């Protein structure tokens, strides 16, 4: 691994489907629970049977509340945790199949933007050293070459002139500048996939839009595939083409952004959208309807649909026993909810009435 190659090792099979960069197949990220330090006591099923395809240059958003498993999904995609079952295929090749070298190559293809920019930067390293590290790891030995690349990326994330920042330490930078360094670090090896974990949630409102615009711009210029993970639906429209809604370890709704925002199909998505507060004075007096209860335990999730204990549209005898498959409720709009089964078309009316109301 001496240069920033953009192609898979020669042994890699051809991509099974054209244009698909990353394919997640029946992914299960389960954490073992140990009793007395040994002996299996069960699993935390953080990600359970998740599948999706990510096309080249496509930006998707994975939305869900805290503890729904989106971080575990992200860690599996970054190769940081090994899945219990299922596959993550990058250009058609399982990222864990190629051993250490294969994983290293894969990692050089993926950029990672974290939530907390200050925590994401080692406090004892200068900006220059922070940006050098990924380059050293792909074997770029020449110092001048590294510096040239660092300058190039810093200009790109608008940390200019680079000389002003190269020798600074993270605590000397503002939150927005820190996040630009994080983005620069993610971009420095010219990745084809970027995983952004709530990249703006820790930033001041004033710089959020700038960072989102920057990410969007970088994504378009480099034809970058982006997985944008957030709990905040109000920011997803900035650059994602599709939204996946995650609940208790499962993707319950997948749809293009506007489609999902304007025509949510799953009762949980509806509740999530209802929870967005717009800066409107009348909102202060409006009582919002939120689903009762808490997200379920991931150790022993409820049988059937995982949302059913909180769902006011649930169908007794079906939702609490059978896991809902994905239904194509509208064109290109998939949702895992029994209401979209033809058998229960009559039960759907209550939900549709609520959707109309909005």
């Amino acid at each position: 691994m001496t240069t920033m190659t953009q192609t898979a090792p020669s042994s890699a099979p051809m991509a099974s489907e054209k244009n698909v960069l990353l394919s997640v197949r029946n992914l299960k990220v389960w954490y073992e629970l140990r009793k007395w330090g040994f002996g299996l006591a069960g699993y935390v099923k953080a990600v359970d049977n998740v599948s999706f395809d990510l096309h080249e240059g496509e930006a998707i958003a994975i939305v869900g509340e805290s503890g729904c498993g989106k971080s575990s999904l992200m860690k599996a995609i970054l190769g940081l945790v090994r899945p219990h079952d299922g596959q993550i295929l990058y250009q058609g090749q399982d990222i864990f199949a190629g051993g250490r070298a294969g994983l290293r190559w894969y990692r050089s293809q993926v950029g990672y933007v974290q939530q907390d920019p200050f925590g994401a930067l080692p406090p004892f390293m200068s900006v220059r050293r922070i940006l050098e590290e990924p380059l050293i790891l792909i074997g770029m030995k020449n110092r001048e070459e590294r510096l040239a690349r660092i300058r190039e990326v810093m200009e790109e994330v608008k940390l200019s002139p680079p000389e002003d920042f190269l020798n600074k330490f993270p605590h000397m930078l503002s939150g927005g500048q820190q996040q630009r360094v994080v983005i620069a670090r993610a971009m420095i090896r010219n990745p084809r996939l970027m995983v952004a974990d709530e990249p703006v949630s820790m930033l001041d409102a004033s710089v959020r839009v700038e960072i989102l615009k920057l990410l969007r711009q970088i994504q378009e210029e480099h034809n970058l595939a982006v997985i944008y993970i957030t709990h905040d639906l109000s920011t997803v429209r900035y650059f994602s083409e599709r939204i996946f809604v995650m609940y208790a370890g499962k993707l319950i709704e997948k749809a293009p952004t506007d489609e999902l925002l304007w025509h949510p199909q799953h009762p949980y998505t509806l509740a999530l959208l209802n929870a967005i507060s717009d800066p409107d004075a009348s909102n202060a007096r409006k009582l919002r309807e939120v689903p009762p209860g808490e997200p379920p335990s991931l150790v022993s999730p409820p049988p059937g649909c995982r949302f059913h204990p909180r769902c006011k549209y649930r169908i007794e005898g079906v939702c609490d026993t059978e896991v809902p498959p994905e239904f194509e409720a509208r064109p290109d709009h998939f949702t895992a909810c029994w209401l979209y089964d033809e058998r229960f078309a009559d039960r759907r009316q209550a939900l549709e009435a609520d959707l109309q109301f909005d």
Partner: protein
Amino acid sequence: MLRGALKELLRYPSALAGLLVILFLVVVSIYTVITIPYSEAIRLWRGGEEIWGDVPKLAAPAWFNHFTSKKRPLTIKLTSQDEGVESNYAQISDDLWVDDTTYTFDFQYDEFPQEVAVTLLGTFTEKAPYVSIVWVKPDGTEIRLADMAVEGGKRVYRASQDEKLGRKLKLPANASPLVGLFAEDPQAEDPVPMKGTYQVRLEGTLFEPDSTLQSKLVVYGTVYGWAGTDHLRRDLGIALLWGTPVALAFGLLAALGTTVLTMLISAIGVWYGGWVDALIQRITEVNLVLPVLPILIMIGVFYTRSLWAMLGVIIALSIFGAGIKTNRAIFLQVKSQPYIEAARAYGASDWRIIFFYMVPRIIPTIIPALVTLIPSFVFLEASLAVLGLGDPVLPTWGKIINDARDNGALYQGLFYWVLEPSALLMITGIGFAMLGFSLDRVFNPRLREL
């Protein structure tokens, strides 16, 4: 960053004082190692009468005289070859020669010397030279000390062992014969030495033409050198000087060894987690209840007392100490930092993460701890020496205290013997402690408000 830390450090007067103390110790160490090479130090320290014969026993440092009104005598040493020593050699008859030597010395002290020794060296083939020793006091009183043949080529006359002399001068029962030689009034209740010019006349008679007679007079004082002497007449200065590099090297190596190894082991344990961490923690917990000093004593008694072996054992026993636990607490926090996850995501290896991402985070807490740990190991070495487990060869501060204790220095009022090494130990401890506390304040800004 380091330069900034140094500049900030010098703003603390205690840090400056600590640095000066350490600098002083380092300069002393370098000076010692250069001027008294190791082999020379060992030779001097293990030497006996041939090296230290002319030095008084248990003598206090000479600078004591500057602080007392009663001046204690310095040692006076004269040989027959010295200038100012009168010799008179003449042939009396065919087989009789006289060889008279007169030593003259000035004595202006307020206390009695420790000893007067006359060493006679004669060469002959059959008949040994015959010598009479005559003591002349400043007031002209002559005392015939001894008449002796230089049998075997060497005779030593020691006044303090001359019991006949005491009887001859009618001294009180337990008075030293030296009182008789020096006192103005030997029978007095509280005799004082007579000041003035003394003479020792050696009246030698030779019986052969080739026969020669040489002699040496030593009036042993009760003060010597800058550090005094011990029960074996050795100059304590050598041990005090050589104790400095030994203490510094021992403290530094032990502190560095334990700190660095402890840090690495706890980092490895935290990073790999699982059974590696569990094993390290269990070893630490067992090791923490093991008493270090008794183990060291056992090793000293049964196996070896070498300083460097002890150093190894101390490091081995201290690695799995409380440091593992405190470092672990910090490393666990560091391990959960997002930048570690980022490093893994861009493919940094385990070792790279441990050395480049975790260790730098703990350095600021390690450095002050390291500096304050140095004197504790210096003290540990001294404690071992005081317990009689000091290195059998090397002179160290602890061994001086041990010798002093064994020889009842404090009962005899020889405070210098205990206080000199103790003072050096304390200075070392205070110096490193002051620097360490200041470093702690520089590196841990949270302490600054206190």
